C-alpha cells in the first residue's frame, strides 16, 4: 500500500506552501501568470533569497546573525558608490567586508561569545559605515551589475532560474558534499567534531566567510535591481532571512537546515506581500493580514508534523 512517507512530506512542506500561495495569486490576479508577472513579483525576492542563505550558514553552526540586514545595506552602499566610481577600491572594500565577517566568526569561536550580541553590535557598525558612505540616498549601480541583474532570460525569468541555481548549489555544497557534511556536523555536535580531529575554529570561520560572501552577493543583486542605494535599504532582511530559513524547515539549533527549503521560504515571504496587495485589504489591516498569512503558512507545517507523529 502506497503510504505517504512523512519525512518526504515534511521536506515538501515549503514547496507546498509556496505552490498554494502561487495558485491563490494566480486565481486572484490572473495577469501574474506570465513571464512579465512572475518577473515583477519575484525579482526583489532574489536578494532576500541570498540573504536568507547567508543566515542559513550562520544558523547551521547554532548562531544567529542580527546584522545581515545592515551588512547587505552597507554592501549596497559600497556598490552604489565606490564600486561604481573606483571599482578597485570597491572590490577591495567588498573583500575586506567578507574578511571582517570571517574575523567575527573567529572572535565568536575563540572567546565563546553569544553571536546575538556580537552581531547586534556589528549591525550598528555596518549601518554606521553605510551612513558615512551615503549620508543621503543615491549613488548608482555599476552598469555591468544592472545589466546582469536585469538580464532577460528566454522563457523563464532570471529570478526563478537564479533562485533554483542558488538552492541547488548550496544544497550540493552543504548537504551532499564531503566538506558540507563536516560543516553541518559542527552544528550538530561540536565536541564530537573536535574529538574527531577537526578544527572548530576553521569550520566556524568558513561558515562566517560564506555568510559574508552571500551577504555581498545579496547586496550586489539588490543594487542591480534598484539601481541606487540608501543606508537603510535592507535593514528588514535580518528578520526576513531568519523567517525564511525557519519557513524552509530549518531549526535554530542542532545544524538542521535545508537550503532548498530556505530559498522556497524566502520566495514565500515575498509572495505573501504580493497576495496581500492583490487582496485589497483596508490599509490599517494590511500589516495584520501579513501576520495572519504567515501564521497560516506556518500552521501548515504543524499540520504535517502532527501527521508525522500519528504515522509513528
Amino acid at each position, binding site marked *: 500500500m502506497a503510504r505517504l512517507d512523512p519525512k518526504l512530506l515534511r521536506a515538501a512542506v515549503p514547496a507546498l506552501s509556496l505552490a498554494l500561495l502561487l495558485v491563490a495569486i494566480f486565481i486572484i490576479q490572473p495577469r501574474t501568470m506570465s513571464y512579465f508577472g512572475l518577473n515583477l513579483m519575484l525579482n526583489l525576492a532574489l536578494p532576500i533569497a541570498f540573504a536568507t542563505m547567508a543566515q542559513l550558514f550562520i544558523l547551521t553552526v547554532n548562531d544567529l546573525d542580527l546584522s545581515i540586514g545592515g551588512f547587505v545595506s552597507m554592501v549596497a552602499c559600497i556598490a552604489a558608490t565606490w564600486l561604481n566610481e573606483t571599482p578597485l577600491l570597491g572590490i577591495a572594500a567588498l573583500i575586506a567586508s567578507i574578511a571582517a565577517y570571517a574575523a567575527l566568526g573567529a572572535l565568536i569561536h575563540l572567546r565563546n561569545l553569544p553571536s546575538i550580541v556580537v552581531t547586534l553590535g556589528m549591525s550598528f557598525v555596518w549601518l554606521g559605515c553605510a551612513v558615512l558612505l551615503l549620508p543621503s540616498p543615491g549613488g548608482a549601480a555599476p552598469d555591468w551589475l544592472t545589466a546582469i541583474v536585469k538580464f532577460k532570460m528566454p522563457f523563464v525569468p532570471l529570478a526563478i532560474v537564479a533562485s533554483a541555481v542558488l538552492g541547488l548549489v548550496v544544497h550540493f555544497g552543504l548537504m*551532499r558534499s*564531503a*566538506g558540507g*557534511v*563536516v560543516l*553541518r*556536523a559542527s*552544528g*550538530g*555536535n561540536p*565536541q*564530537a*567534531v*573536535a*574529538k*574527531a*580531529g*577537526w578544527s572548530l575554529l576553521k569550520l566556524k570561520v568558513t561558515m562566517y566567510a560564506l555568510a559574508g560572501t552571500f551577504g555581498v552577493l545579496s547586496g550586489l543583486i539588490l543594487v542591480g535591481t534598484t539601481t541606487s542605494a540608501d543606508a537603510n535599504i535592507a535593514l528588514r532582511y535580518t528578520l526576513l532571512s531568519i523567517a525564511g530559513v525557519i519557513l524552509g524547515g530549518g531549526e535554530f539549533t*542542532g*545544524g*538542521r537546515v535545508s537550503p532548498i527549503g530556505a530559498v522556497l521560504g524566502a520566495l514565500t515571504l515575498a509572495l505573501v506581500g504580493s497576495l496581500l496587495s492583490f487582496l485589497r485589504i483596508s490599509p490599517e489591516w494590511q500589516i495584520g493580514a501579513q501576520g495572519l498569512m504567515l501564521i497560516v503558512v506556518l500552521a501548515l507545517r504543524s499540520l504535517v508534523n502532527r501527521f508525522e507523529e500519528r504515522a509513528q
Partner: protein
Amino acid sequence: MTTHSQQQRREAMPGSSLQDSLVALSGVTKTFGAVRALAGVDLSVGPGECIGLVGHNGAGKSTLMQILAGTLRPTDGRYDLGGETVALSDVSVSKAQGVGIRCVFQELSLCPNLTATENVRVRHAALSGFGWRKRAAKLLTEALDDIFPGHGISPGATVGDLSLGRRQMVEIAINFIATESSHPRLVILDEPTSSLDQSVASQLLAYARRFVEAGGSIILISHILGDIFSTAGRIVVMRDGAVVADRPASEFDRASLVAAMGHVAEDDEDEALAHAAKARIGEPVVIARPPKQANGAAVSLHRGEIVGLAGLAGHGQTALLRLVQHAAYHRSRLAEVRGRIAFVAGDRQSDGVFPLWSIGENVTIRSLPALSRLGFVSSAREAAMEAEWKDTLKIRTPDMDDNILTLSGGNQQKALFARALGSDAEIIAMDDPMRGVDVGTKREVYERIRKEAGEGRSFLWYTTEFDELLHCDHVYVFREGRIVAELDRGELTEEKVLQSSFDEAAA
C-alpha cells in the same frame, strides 16, 4: 612504528617494553581544579592485547582513556606514541589517530543531525571526493554486518532518529572501520555495552575477540564483570585515580576482582533474590497499553511491586515508560496512573541531566515543591536533602555545588537516582537506569529498591540485563513495540525471555 596488523598474537604481558608498545603512559596525572582525577598512572598497550579496565565510578577510567585518545592533555607525566615520546603540549587527537588509536567515548559523540553515513565521513577525514557517500555507506554497512550481524540499521538513517542502542552500535562500527589511510590499531571501548542488550553485547564482545586475534588491540571498560572475563587477556584495576592492579586475567576471579576494586565481597546474592512472587491484589496503580498493542494486553503495576520490562533494546519499553510518565500529568487513552511518579533516565544526556546546574540542583529538582514554602525554595531544606543523598548513594564529589558534568558518568547516574528516590513519588519509572553504575553501587541500589518496594513504593523497571530482572516480581517482555510475554517471578528464566524477545526476528 614497529607494529603491524598482521603481527601474530603475543601473550599479554604487564609492563611490556616501551619500544613494542602502541601507546604508553607513565606517571600521568590529571587535575581538574581541585579534583585530582589521575594520580600518576602507568599504562602501556601493546599490539594484539585486550585490556579490561575496571574500577569504581569516578576512578578515572574515562579520563585516562581521553588522555590516551588525545582529547585531553595530561597535567604531568610522559606520553609515548609508537615508541616516541610526545611533548605534553603536543598531545592531540590527530597524533593519536595517526597511529590508529580510536575511542568510543562513554558519552556518545555522533552528530544527531547527520545520517549514519555522514557521521562516518566526519570521523574519517580521508573519505572525500567524488562518490564518498557510496564508499562511506559501504564501509559502514560492512562494519555493522561484521560486528552486529542482523543489525537492521540503514546507513541513510538520521542518527537523531535512532534509539540509544542503535546509535551506540553505529558509533562502535564507525570506530572499527579501516580506510586506505587509517587502520584501527587500538580501539578503546568505554562502557560500550551499557546501552546494548545482552545479545548485541555478546556480538560485540565476540567481534572484539576476533579483532584482537587478528593483531588489533582493545581496551574495554565495563562494570559488567562477565564482559571483562570473557574478553580481556589482561585486567587493569583503577581506584581513586591510580592503577592498583595490572595482571593477566587468568590471575583474577570474580571475588578477587571485586575486592581489588575496593568493594566488599559479595554475599550470597541468590538468597536475597529467592523471594516468592507476591500475589497481585487490589487495584493496580499503573495500567498502560503500548500504542501498537493489538490485543488487550497491558502492563500493570500494583502497589509495592517491582515490575520489569524486558526484551531487546529499543522495542518500545522506553516509549511505554514515557507514556506512563506523561499519563501521570495529562489525560491519556492508553494509560492510567494513580499516584505521583518519578523517572530515572537512562539516556542521561538527553533525558536526565541539566548541564548548567550543580549536582545538588540536579538532585532536588523533582522535590522542589516539597522543599519550599509559598512557592519559594528553602535553601536549608535543599542543602539537607543534597547532603543526605550524597551520603546515601556515595556520590563522589568534593562538593554538591560543583557542576553535574564534573562527575564521572556513573556518578551522574547516581545523582539521577537520588532525584527520583528522594522525591515524594509513589511510582518510579526506571529506563535502564544502571548504565555505567559500578558493581558496588548497583548492589546497594538493588537493595534499596527492594526495601522501598517492601514499604509500598512501586517500581517500573526497564532493563537490558537479565540479572536485574531477577529482582522483579513480574516481567513483561517486549518485541516491536508490543507485549509478547508476561512472566511471573516463578516462571522467569533467561531462556524464556530470550525466546520471546527473538521469536519472529529469528524467522
